[in-house]
């Protein structure tokens, strides 16, 4: 199978993988540009057939995946390989197709997210309002149960009422996600989180929810709030959840 087709197939799966490309070589068996794939479980595809080299490449590939650091490595004298990490495209699920949802979807699409918008009000969850998005006009919970939520998913809860936000949160919390953020004033958020805590959700998981949502940039209008949320999504994607929290805290103190 052609390596690019294989890369595209793997991109449909959830796990990151390593794409190793020969970028300088003195070995004829390893021409410039030749590629192999190293999966999360260590298995190597499309190797060169020389066992020592394949083992070496597979080992480095696994290290790169573990450390999450793309890099070039001279694996052997005269042979340099670039180990790239290729991952599933980040997807954003927006619950609530209201005033903030519209600009947020627009920002997120241009930032490279695959965006799904959910609302139970067909007038709001209207594809005409959301270019290049997957728009679902249906019950929140039913929809969240039916769509794929995984570790490349970013979930933003901005429905019209806290009851909906709470129900959506309860639905999303058991899933492994990249990000969950919920809108609301500190007081109302506290009430929602307390309620869910009483319902048995772990504090660790509840504290992981980004709330109040968005990087604190003093946002007021729906567009500004959407920008603050989009900035938070980018920060989590690029720097990780922990550093995003430090950034938020640094601004707020």
């Amino acid at each position: 199978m052609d390596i690019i087709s294989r890369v595209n197939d793997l991109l449909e799966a959830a796990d990151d993988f390593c794409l190793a490309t020969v970028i300088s070589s003195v070995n004829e068996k390893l021409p410039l540009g030749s590629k192999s794939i190293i999966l999360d479980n260590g298995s190597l595809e499309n190797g060169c057939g020389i066992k020592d080299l394949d083992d070496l490449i597979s080992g480095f590939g696994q290290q790169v995946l573990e450390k999450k650091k793309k890099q070039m490595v001279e694996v052997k004298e005269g042979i340099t390989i670039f180990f790239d990490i290729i991952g599933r495209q980040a997807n954003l699920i927006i619950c609530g197709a209201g005033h903030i949802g519209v600009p947020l979807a627009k920002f997120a699409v241009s930032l490279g997210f695959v965006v799904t918008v959910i609302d139970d009000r067909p007038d709001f969850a209207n594809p005409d309002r959301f270019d290049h998005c997957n728009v679902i006009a249906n019950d929140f919970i039913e929809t969240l149960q039916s769509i794929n939520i995984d570790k490349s998913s970013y979930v933003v809860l901005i429905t019209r009422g806290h009851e909906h936000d709470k129900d959506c949160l309860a639905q999303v919390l058991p899933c492994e996600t990249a990000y969950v953020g919920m809108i609301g004033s500190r007081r109302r958020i506290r009430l929602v989180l307390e309620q869910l805590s009483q319902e048995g959700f772990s504090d660790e998981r509840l504290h992981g929810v980004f709330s109040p949502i968005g990087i604190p940039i003093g946002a007021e209008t729906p567009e500004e709030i959407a920008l603050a949320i989009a900035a938070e999504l980018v920060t989590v994607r690029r720097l990780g959840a922990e550093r995003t929290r430090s950034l938020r805290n640094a601004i707020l103190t």
Partner: protein
Amino acid sequence: MEDKVLFKKIERLRKKGLGSCLATIVKTQGSTPRDVGAKMLVTVNSEFYGSIGGGCGEKQVFSAALRCLLVSKQPELVNVDLTDDLGIKGGDVCGGKIQVFVEPFFPAEKQT
């Protein structure tokens, strides 16, 4: 632009019988606009998708990509120096160096 979009694009162009060239930053030194792994895809009709940092450095890589797509038909490792000016000559102001691997992808029948 996401990697996924670019890899899909390579495949789609190939199916149409068109070649394209992928440029990937494999090493950076000093201050650079994009990190290792940033990619740009250049097509035979000089269209480009994604970015490896913009400015003159990107232009240099763009030319290298077209060269390897149309002339040499071979992959190439390109060194781009962004340190030799302060933007005075219309160059890049970041001040670092990048190494970029450019590799052509041809439609199946043209592959050797």
